[in-house]
């Protein structure tokens, strides 16, 4: 089986966001970057599929971004992915631009399955898996928390309001991983060492115009700290009164 995982290099979720001088991006000073948390579930799923499918299977990891993204590609390689491709572009892209770059590369291979995180935790749109699937003509399920392969058929459970949709689709497919799909493994020391010897092919990302443009980025207005009504249950009646009469929410 020929498997590809798409990963994205993003600020750690513990980052306190400050706005950059351009007022359009974050200030990157002092920010730690990590592999997008949802992409770890995608990598893990790819590794599990490869283990099941057997030794002649191969996993490639692809990322669109600057040279720094190589760190995240290495992380996937250390977890057990076979080789990496960096589609280089120093400029930010919207979901459409990312998906176009990925699709051009993926079309030139014969992948049976594409794993992605369901969204990256920077721009949070959650649109790349679907757009990519559309551009390469694969079927797709995203926000997937359970996945089974049965011959050519894939049964995916998607998290939706009030439960899970059980979706049937066929390979080749794009799968967007949601937290809960699996338990990502830690890279072993051996994995980390061998990742250094694995190849990362670098090439420019396919040209694509952005379809949207960020005009301004700002932090939300800080909330005024409220009132501490007390330190024990005696404050409860006052809390209930305020919720009814002032906030009018109950």
């Amino acid at each position, binding site marked *: 089986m020929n498997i590809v995982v798409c990963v994205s290099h993003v600020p750690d979720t513990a980052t306190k966001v400050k706005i950059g001088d351009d007022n359009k991006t974050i200030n990157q000073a002092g920010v730690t970057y990590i592999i997008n948390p949802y992409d770890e579930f995608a990598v893990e799923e790819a590794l599990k599929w490869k283990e099941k499918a057997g030794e002649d299977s191969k996993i490639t990891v692809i990322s669109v971004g600057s040279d720094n993204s190589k760190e995240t590609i290495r992380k996937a390689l250390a977890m057990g992915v076979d080789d990496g491709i960096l589609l280089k572009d120093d400029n930010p892209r919207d979901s459409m631009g990312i998906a176009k770059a990925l699709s051009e590369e993926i079309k030139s291979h014969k992948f049976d399955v594409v794993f992605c995180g369901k969204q990256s935790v920077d721009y949070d749109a959650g649109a790349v898996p679907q757009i990519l699937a559309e551009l390469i003509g694969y079927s797709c399920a995203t926000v997937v928390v359970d996945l089974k392969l049965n011959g050519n058929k894939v049964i995916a459970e998607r998290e939706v309001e009030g439960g899970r949709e059980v979706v049937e689709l066929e390979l080749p497919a794009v799968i967007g991983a949601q937290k809960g799909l699996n338990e990502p493994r830690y890279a072993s020391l051996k994995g980390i060492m061998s990742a250094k010897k694995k190849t990362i092919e670098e090439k420019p990302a396919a040209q694509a115009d952005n379809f949207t443009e960020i005009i301004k980025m700002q932090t939300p207005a800080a909330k005024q700290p409220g009132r501490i009504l007390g330190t024990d249950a005696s404050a409860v009646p006052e*809390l209930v009164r305020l919720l009814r009469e002032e906030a009018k929410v109950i």
Partner: protein
Amino acid sequence: MAKNILAILEQREGKLKKPSFETASTAVRLASELNLEIEAIAVGNEITNLVEIGDYGIKKITHLKSDKLGNYSSSGYSEVLANFAKEIDAEYLLIANTALGKDLAPYIAAKLNAGLIMDAINTDSSPGEIIATRPVYAGKALVDVKFMTDKKVLTIRPNVFKAVTKDKNEPEIIVKEIEPTNLKSKVIDFKKSESKLDVAEADIIVSGGRGLKSPENFKLIEDLAEVLGAAVGASRAVVDAGWRPHREQVGQTGKTVSPSLYIACGISGAIQHLAGMSSAKYIVAINKDKDAPIFNVADYGIAGDVFEVLPVLTEEIKKIK
């Protein structure tokens, strides 16, 4: 043809739900601000309450009907909707950012080669085009985004845009029987979760964190949620510990929520959690540690023991309900 906006309305189990009325209302508002013709559409088999859409100012709605599309199919829905959008040469497409809308909008945008802005929480039409504000970094920052394309797909966050009823009005309902050709991906079953309400949809959320000390103690959270008709939420710590299912997690790598009331119990307020719930209209924090960061965003706080405060709060609310 005049410039137009297409409101895509979602049905679940044969009924339009609240986010669809918010979408309809928002489309009506945008149409008047930008001088657009308005069209509305719903895909499904039987849809029992289409007529209600008239009360929100929609005069005409097309129902794309097929017994094969009673349940969601990403490939089937996106195909018939993109075809309809091409047919009427829609300039703007508006969809609620529900599980279905979030899934569907990117496929449609790709098929139409359209710009896509997901999860808007505000729109500004004053420049003569839509500038959408959307949260990024789970709400730690907001961006204003504009479209660079002729065709534009916009999804709007549920519970944020108002569903405004206008005068009673019976809309024209055009039923078009269709035969979807692309059912590569289809929903074959639905597994209902045990929890009655989903945090992403709830108007009130009662959330618990590590301060609850054990999974059994979430009974206190569930009891309060029950009397309030609220959904149960959880912090990442308790989800990662396996106390609560992931679908209840609020925050970055969980759900970003905007309820009217968010009650945080035994949650200290890690930055990832605050990002996911700070846009709630009212926040109540109950936590023993008076220096916990959660109090910085709370409107009302009790710096006390959750085990003592929660049962009393549940009783007090029972009295007034």
